[in-house]
């Protein structure tokens, strides 16, 4: 299981290394900052979708491996989100914080993206055992913010699309399916597809 966690770690780090190498070797085009910005943002969204797919996957397969990497993938999604915001600040705004202030007052898609990242920040700082213990039942409630963050990220992306909805539609469809799988009736049905083994009648984790 340690090997599994390590390989997930490496797999999540690889896109960053790949894009960094492309920029360093001049393969990222005439506007490398924009290239990183778009890739980091998209990667954060994909990782968020993957994180949210782990619970249904675990229910379906009963393989604990999926649960083991949930926190890690969530943190990776947050990390790429931070890289996305950093690229925006550094490469698009040229570290002009007053321009960010202006954006945050005027531009809905920036506000929505920023709000999503703040939610992921709240989840990231409470993703340790201490916080789980301290927050008790409220922890689970708090971490449902991930659903709202996903909706906001999709809205943020929607407002950036200009001429073709194909890619956005794919992500939105994935998001909708993941949310549907969390409706209690569907979620319980999902758990019955693979029959339970023996008498180990442990209640499946929900969330």
């Amino acid at each position, binding site marked *: 299981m340690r090997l599994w966690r390590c390989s997930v770690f490496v797999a999540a780090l690889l896109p960053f290394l790949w894009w960094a190498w492309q*920029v360093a070797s001049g393969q990222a*085009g*005439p*506007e*490398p*900052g*924009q290239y*990183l910005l778009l890739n980091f943002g998209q990667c954060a969204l994909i990782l968020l979708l993957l994180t949210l797919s782990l619970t249904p996957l675990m229910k379906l397969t009963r393989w604990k491996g999926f649960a083991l990497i949930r926190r890690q993938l969530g943190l990776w999604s947050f990390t790429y989100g931070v890289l996305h915001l950093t690229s925006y600040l*550094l*490469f*698009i705004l*040229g570290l002009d914080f007053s*321009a960010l202030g*202006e*954006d945050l007052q005027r*531009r809905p*898609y920036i506000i929505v993206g920023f709000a999503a990242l703040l939610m992921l920040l709240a989840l990231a700082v409470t993703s340790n055992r201490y916080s789980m213990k301290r927050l008790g039942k409220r922890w689970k409630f708090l971490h449902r913010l991930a659903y709202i963050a996903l909706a906001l990220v999709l809205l943020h992306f929607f*407002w*950036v699309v*200009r*001429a*073709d*909805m*194909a890619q956005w*539609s794919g992500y939105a469809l994935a998001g909708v399916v993941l949310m549907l799988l969390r409706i209690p009736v569907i979620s319980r049905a999902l758990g019955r597809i693979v029959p339970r083994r023996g008498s180990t009648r442990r209640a499946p984790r929900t969330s």
Partner: protein
Amino acid sequence: MLIRTRKRHHIGENEVTSESVYHARRHFMAGVAGLGMAAALPRSVWAASEYDDVEQGSRPDWFASRLDNTHWKAVAAGENDKLTPFNDATHYNNFFEFGTSKDDPYKHAGAMTTEPWTIEIDGEVARPGTLDMNQLLGEQQLEERIYRLRCVEAWSMVIPWLGVPLSAILKRAEPTSDARYVRFQTLMRPEEMPGQRSRFGLIDWPYQEGLRMDEAMHPLTILSVGMYGRILPNQNGAPVRLVVPWKYGFKSIKSIVRISLVREQPPTAWPTINANEYGFYSNVNPDVDHPRWSQARERRLPNSLFSPNMIDTQMFNGYGDEVASLYKGMDLRKYF
């Protein structure tokens, strides 16, 4: 006859070339002359050597036959305008017929057939007709015009176009007094253009753009058939595209198959999708933001990670002296 009026954005060659480079060049030319070569070189070879890192591409007759008689540097680069490298100008494009990523046009535009090519000129003209490239260009001399290109997405480039004034071509078709706007249309060929096949596309193909008659007749407005001393690459709008340097790049429609002179303002591609974000005029204007980002500054390409190469955007992309009078009395916040 070519009347050359020197505008503020033009600068003399003596103003840009440093003395040391000037003398080095003399030295080099003396060497070349000593070999008895310089006089023997046709001008097209001279021009090509200006862009010696640029691969030539195909050279159909209608293009090759005009190169020797081209007026090079008819509009020179502005003071701070460094030419964008050819590789960047041809690998970083918006041409949504081939996909929405910046590298899609380079990847997919090779499939577009551009030879032979015809353009239909119709509408409010006394002489409508279908012209091939030779007929379209007629007796017109090609001119090299180095213009700034400002994309609505806030990046910009500096590109040496080869083209002819649009006015000359429109005049030949003899517009009637009812011709108030010009509508342009891009090629519609889904089998060669993957973007036109997308079921999620928002643009109502074929892509359409338009100008008011006085904008179309303005001396800065050209139909371009080449860049960097060579023919236009497909992703840059081969074989013929519009270039309107004081407007956002999307107004400069690519791969034109039809030019219609019309009475009413035509429904152009971007305002049709989203009238709040894109206007018919789309003049470069640092004071009118795109709803999603500021237009006050731009990123001159190429840039690098830690020097984003941000510069202040100029009203009418710096061509205000020439074009501001077209919009006298108009509220450019309303007619953006």
